[in-house]
C-alpha cells in the first residue's frame, strides 16, 4: 500500500504530520462527543436528577475509559484510512457498470471490511454505555424445563449488527459520493473557523444519514435477521429465550426506544467519522508556502519552480499551484523573486520553470478537449482519410533553451485549432465508424488508447480488451491516489501512441471482424439491463474531463496575476518574452472550452449541490474554469490595453483579442 509517493519528502514531512494532527484533534474531540452521546442516549424527562447523576457516574467509570481507548483506536484507524484513500482528483464513474466496478474492487472491499469491523466496535461501545438491556450478548435465563442456561440477548446483537451495517454503508456511500475526494476552497480561512463553519453540516449530515441507514437496516433485519441470530446461537452455544418475542418481527422492530437508540448510536458513529474526515480535509488542504528560491543548493528541490513540475504526489503539485496563485495575488516580495534573474548568468530560471509548467498544463487541457470534441463531433461518421497527415504532438517543443519562450504546438497553427483535426483527425478509417462516443463501452480499442488521458471512465471495457490495454487496467479500477498517474495533467499527448500503426490496409478479415462486432453490439444494445449498465450517466463524462481542473484554474490565476504585476514590477522584462505564448495558449483554451460548452449534452448551469458530506466541488469545476479563463484574459487585456497591439500573434488570435479589448466577449 505504501507506494513510491511515500518516499517523497513532502509526504513524509508535511502530509503525514498534517494527517497526524487532524487525527489527534479528532481523538481530542472524542470526550465531548461521547458525553453528548451519553446524555442523549440515557435521556429521560421524568427523572432529570437521576439522569444527570447517572451520566456523570458513567463518564467517570472504568468501562467509559475503556470505551474511550477503543473509540480512540477506531478514530486512528479511520484517520489512517482517510490518509490512505484520499485523492485530489476525483474518480468519476461514467456508467453504472464503472461504478459497480469501483464498488467491487478488492481495495474497496478491504476498506468496507475494516469499516464494518470498526462499526461493530463502536456499536459495542455504544451498547456498553447505553447499558440496560443492551449491555451483554448473553444473559442467564431459565428454560421452560427449569434448568438455568445462557440466552442470547437479541438487543445487543441488533445494535452490533447495526454498527456493522452503518459502517458498511458508509464505506459504500463514500465511493458513490466520492467522499475520499479532497477539494480546495477559494475562500481561505483559518482552520478553526473552517471547522466551526462545517460543524452544523456535519451534525445535519450524520443525523440524516443515520436515519436512512437505520431505516434500511431495519428492513434488512426484518427479512434476514434470523440468519445471524441462529448463527450466533450455534457458534456461542446460546439459546433463544422463547418467552420473549423475537425482534425480527414487526412488533419487535416497532419499538420506538430501540429505534431511537439505533439512530443515536448510528449518528454518534457517523459523527465521529465525519469529524475525522472533515478535520483531515481541513488540515491537508491548508496553504503551504514554498520558497521561491533558496540560497542553499540542498534545499533547491523544495523550491516552488522545482516542486511545481513534479508529477507525484498530486497533492504536492496542487499545493504548489495554490501557493503560486496566492503569491501572485498577495505577495509582492515573493513575486519579485519570481521575476528575478539568476545571479551568475542572468537567466530568469524561476519564471521560465513556472510559466513553462503552467503553459503545459493549459495546452494539455486544450489537447484533451480537442480530442474529446472530435470523438463526440464525429459521432460515428467516417471521415475522409488524408494519408500522411500525422497528428502533431507537443513533443517536438524544445524547452531547454531558457531564452526561447516555450512555443506550444498550438502556436504553430495560427488558424483555429479545430481545423487541423478535421483535415487529419486521430481516427483511423477502421475505428472511426465505430466510435459513437468516447465513453461508450463499445468504443474501439484504438480510440480508447488514443484518448487514454481522458477516458478513465469505463473500466469494463479495458478489462476485456487486449492485454496491451490490460496493463492500464488496475489503475482504472482503483479508487486510490494511484489513479493520479492516469488522470495526470502531466500526461502529454506525446505519450499517446501514434495512430499510425492502426492505419493499415483494411483487410478482409478485419472487415469481417468489424461486421461481427457491430452485430454483437446491435444485439447487446437491445437488452435493457445491458443498456442500463453501460449507458453513460449524464454529465459524468464532462465532469471526468475537467476532474483535475483545479490545477488549471490556479495555473490561469497565477499566470494572469503575474503578468498583471509584471506591468509595473518586472524590471528585466522576463515576462514579455513569454507573453505571446501565454496569450495564445489562453485564447486557444478559451476556444476549446467554448466549443465544449456548446456540445449538446453539456449542461450550461451547475447543479445545486445538496448538503452531503461528499464534496461536490468537482461537479462545478468546469464552470469555474470557464469563468477563471475569461477573467484571466480580461485581466491581461485591461492591464496592457493598447500595448498588446505590439505583441506578436496570429491574425486569428488578434481578432479574438480585439473582442476582449472592446469588452465584447
Amino acid at each position, binding site marked *: 500500500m505504501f507506494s513510491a509517493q511515500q518516499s517523497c519528502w513532502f509526504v513524509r514531512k508535511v502530509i503525514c504530520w498534517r494527517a497526524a494532527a487532524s487525527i489527534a484533534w479528532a481523538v481530542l474531540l472524542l470526550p465531548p462527543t461521547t458525553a453528548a452521546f451519553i446524555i442523549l442516549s440515557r435521556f429521560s424527562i421524568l427523572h432529570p436528577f437521576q439522569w444527570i447523576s447517572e451520566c456523570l457516574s458513567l463518564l467517570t467509570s472504568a468501562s467509559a475509559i475503556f470505551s474511550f481507548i477503543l473509540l480512540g483506536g477506531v478514530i486512528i484507524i479511520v484517520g489512517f484510512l482517510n490518509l490512505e484513500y484520499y485523492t485530489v482528483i476525483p474518480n468519476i464513474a461514467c456508467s453504472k457498470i464503472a461504478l459497480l466496478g469501483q464498488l467491487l474492487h478488492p481495495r474497496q472491499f478491504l476498506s468496507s471490511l475494516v469499516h464494518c469491523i470498526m462499526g461493530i466496535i463502536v456499536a459495542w461501545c455504544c451498547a456498553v454505555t447505553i447499558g440496560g438491556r443492551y449491555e451483554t450478548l448473553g444473559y442467564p435465563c431459565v428454560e421452560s424445563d427449569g434448568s438455568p442456561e445462557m440466552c442470547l440477548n437479541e438487543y445487543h446483537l441488533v445494535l452490533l449488527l447495526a454498527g456493522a451495517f452503518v459502517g458498511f454503508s458508509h464505506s459504500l456511500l463514500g465511493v458513490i459520493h466520492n467522499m475520499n475526494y479532497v477539494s480546495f*476552497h*477559494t*475562500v*481561505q*480561512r*483559518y482552520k478553526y*473557523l473552517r471547522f466551526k*463553519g462545517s460543524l452544523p453540516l456535519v451534525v445535519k449530515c450524520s443525523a440524516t444519514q443515520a436515519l436512512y441507514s437505520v431505516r434500511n437496516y431495519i428492513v434488512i433485519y426484518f427479512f434476514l435477521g434470523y440468519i445471524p441470530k441462529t448463527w450466533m446461537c450455534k457458534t456461542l452455544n446460546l439459546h433463544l429465550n422463547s418467552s420473549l418475542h423475537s425482534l425480527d418481527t414487526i412488533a419487535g422492530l416497532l419499538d420506538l426506544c430501540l429505534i431511537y437508540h439505533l439512530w443515536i448510536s448510528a449518528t454518534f458513529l457517523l459523527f465521529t467519522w465525519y469529524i475525522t474526515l472533515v478535520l483531515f480535509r481541513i488540515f491537508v488542504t491548508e496553504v503551504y508556502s514554498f520558497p521561491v528560491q533558496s540560497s542553499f543548493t540542498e534545499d533547491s528541490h523544495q523550491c516552488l519552480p522545482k516542486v511545481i513540475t513534479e508529477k507525484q504526489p498530486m497533492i504536492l503539485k496542487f499545493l504548489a499551484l495554490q501557493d503560486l496563485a496566492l503569491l501572485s*495575488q*498577495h505577495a509582492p516580495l515573493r513575486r519579485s523573486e519570481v521575476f528575478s534573474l539568476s545571479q551568475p548568468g542572468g537567466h530568469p530560471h524561476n519564471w521560465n520553470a513556472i510559466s513553462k509548467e503552467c503553459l503545459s498544463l493549459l495546452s494539455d487541457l486544450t489537447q484533451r478537449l480537442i480530442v474529446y470534441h472530435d470523438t463526440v463531433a464525429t459521432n460515428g461518421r467516417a471521415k475522409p482519410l488524408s494519408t500522411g497527415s500525422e497528428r502533431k504532438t507537443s513533443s517536438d517543443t524544445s524547452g531547454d533553451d531558457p531564452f526561447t519562450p516555450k512555443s506550444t504546438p498550438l502556436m504553430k497553427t495560427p488558424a483555429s485549432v479545430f481545423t487541423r483535426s478535421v483535415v487529419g483527425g486521430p481516427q483511423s478509417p477502421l475505428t472511426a465508424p465505430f466510435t459513437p462516443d468516447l465513453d461508450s463501452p463499445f468504443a474501439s480499442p484504438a480510440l480508447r488508447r488514443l484518448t487514454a488521458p481522458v477516458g478513465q471512465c469505463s473500466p469494463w471495457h479495458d478489462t476485456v480488451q487486449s492485454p496491451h490495454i490490460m496493463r492500464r487496467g488496475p489503475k482504472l479500477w482503483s479508487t486510490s491516489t494511484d489513479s493520479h498517474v492516469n488522470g495526470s495533467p502531466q500526461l502529454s499527448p506525446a505519450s499517446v501512441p501514434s495512430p499510425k500503426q492502426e492505419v493499415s490496409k483494411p483487410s478482409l478479415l478485419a472487415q469481417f471482424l468489424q461486421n461481427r462486432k457491430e452485430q454483437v453490439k446491435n444485439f447487446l444494445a437491445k437488452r435493457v439491463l445491458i443498456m442500463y449498465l453501460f449507458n453513460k450517466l449524464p454529465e459524468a463524462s464532462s465532469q471526468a474531463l475537467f476532474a483535475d481542473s483545479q490545477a488549471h484554474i490556479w495555473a490561469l*490565476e497565477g499566470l494572469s*496575476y503575474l503578468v*498583471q*504585476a509584471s*506591468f*509595473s514590477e518586472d524590471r528585466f522584462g522576463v515576462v514579455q518574452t513569454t507573453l505571446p505564448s501565454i496569450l495564445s495558449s489562453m485564447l486557444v483554451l478559451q476556444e476549446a472550452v467554448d466549443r465544449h460548452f456548446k456540445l449538446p449534452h453539456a449542461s*450550461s*448551469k*451547475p447543479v*445545486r*449541490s445538496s448538503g452531503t458530506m461528499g464534496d461536490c*466541488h468537482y461537479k*462545478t*469545476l468546469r*464552470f*469555474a474554469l*470557464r*469563468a*477563471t479563463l*475569461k*477573467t484571466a484574459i*480580461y*485581466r491581461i487585456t*485591461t*492591464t496592457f*490595453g493598447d500595448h498588446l497591439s505590439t505583441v506578436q500573434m496570429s491574425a486569428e488570435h488578434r481578432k479574438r483579442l480585439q473582442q476582449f479589448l*472592446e*469588452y*465584447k*466577449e
Partner: protein
Amino acid sequence: MCSLALFPPPLPSGHTTLCESNNELLSGASSEDHRLIQVSQNKLGINTAFLDHSETLWMRSAAAWRDGGFTGLLNEITNSHTEDIFQILKIWCTLALLQWVSSFHGSLFPHLTLSSEDMIAEFSQVLNWPDCVVRAFAWHPHTDKFAVALLDDSIKIYNPKSATTPTLKHRLQRSVAAVQWKPLCASALAVACQNCLLVWHVDPCSLSTRPSSGCAQVLSHPGHSPVTSIAWSPSGSLLVSASPMDTAMMVWDVAAENCVPLQRVGGGGVTFLSWSPDGSHVLASTPSLLFRVWETRMWTCERWPCVKGRCQSGCWSPDGSRLLFTVQGETVIYALTFTDAPGKVYTAAAVVADLSETTFNTQDGDITVGGEIQSLAWDPKGERLAVLLKGLVQSDRPPVIAVFKTRTSPIFELLPCGFVQGEPGAEPRLMQFHPNFQHGALLTVCWSTGRITHVPFYFLSAGVPHFGLNGSPSLPRPQERPSDFANQSLFTEMIS
C-alpha cells in the same frame, strides 16, 4: 475639518448644476439639452392586465411557502377568508407563539420586525427607496454602459455603442436593492433581490432585447433574504452579499454557485457592504451599533463599535488605505486608516468633515442645507467626494448633494467644491461615479423625477497615474479645455 459653512452658496431656484471646470461649478438656467433618460413614472407591470382569480387555500399556501417561506405561509393562511374556524384557530395559536418568540428576539434587534420591503427601504443606499423610480444604478467598471433597475422590477441596460437596450425580467427579480457589474467581465451583472441573488449574463453582442430568464443564475441560501447589498471583489472572482435578517455574510463563488457563510456573533445582520478598490478589505455594517472591516486574505474581521447609531454608508480611497464612513444620527464623516505596518493600531476614527445645518443668505432668501447623510461616493481617482444629504421634509430642507475636493497625499485633506442641484422639484436619490472617466470625474445622479443626469468634473489629476495591481493604467491625459466636451455628453444622441 471641513464644514458646510465654507461651501459656496447653493444655486438660486431654477438653476441646474452642469459641470465643474476651472475649479468652479458651472450652472445653467434650463436643462433641456442635458436631459438624458426619462424613466416613466408609471409602475409598469403586467399585473394590471389580468383579472383577479381565487385559488384554493392549498394552492395559495404552496405559493406563499415557495415565495415567502414559513412566515409567508402563515401570513397567507391567516389572511385567507376560509370557513374552517378550527384551522384558523390552530394557525392563530402557532402565529401567536411565534410572534411571542420573535418579539423577544425583535426587542434585541428591532429591525427584524420590519417587512422585507421596509427593511430594504431602511437599509438601502437609495434615498426614499420605496417610491424611487430608479431603484438601483450601476456603471460597468470598464466600458461606457450602465444598468438601471426600475420601480417595476425590470432592469434596463444602456450602451451607447449598441442600438438595443436589453430589458431584464425574471420571476424572482423583485424589490431590487442593488445591482453591480462583475469586474473583468463584459457580461455578468449581479442583482440583489428580495429572496435571492441573480447573476445575469447579458451577451454584449446579442441583439435580443429581452434576454430569457435562462441567462440568469439564481443564488439563494436559506435565511438569506432580503439581500440589501452586494459587492464584487475587484479581481472578479468572488461576490459577497448581505442581508439584515442573516448574521452571516455570504461569500459566493458564482461560477460554481456555492457559498461560504462568514458568521459572527453580534450585530443581528449585515446591511451594507463595500469592497475596497485594492481588494484587501471589505466594510460590512450591521443594523446595530457596530460595523466590521474584513480582511480578505484569511477572512478575519475587526469590530468597530459606534456610539450613536449604525454605520449608514461608507466608501474607500482608491488605494484601499482609507475608509470614510457615516453614522446614522450624526452629521459628520469619519475616517479610518488601514496600513500594512504592524504596531500602528488605530483605536478611534477621526472626524474629517462636519455637515451640520448651515444657513446661506441668497437672493431667494435663507436656504438651510445640511443634516444626516444618506450615502457617500468617492471618485476612482480619489479627488472628488460626493455626499448625499438626507434633508428634512417637515423643516423644508431638501436633499442635496455636496461635493468635496479630496487629496490623499501627503496628508488627507477635504476642501469644499459645491452643491450639485437639479431642476426645481427634483431631489437626488442615488449617485455613482463613473469608474474610468478620462478627464476628471463624472458623477451620475438619479433624480426623484426619474431623470438620470451626468455631472462632469473636469480637472487634471494631481497625483501620478496609479499603476496599482487592480487599476488599469490610465492614459496620459492631454490638457483639454472643458468646452471641448461640453457638447459631447455621453448618452445624448441615442436616448430620447
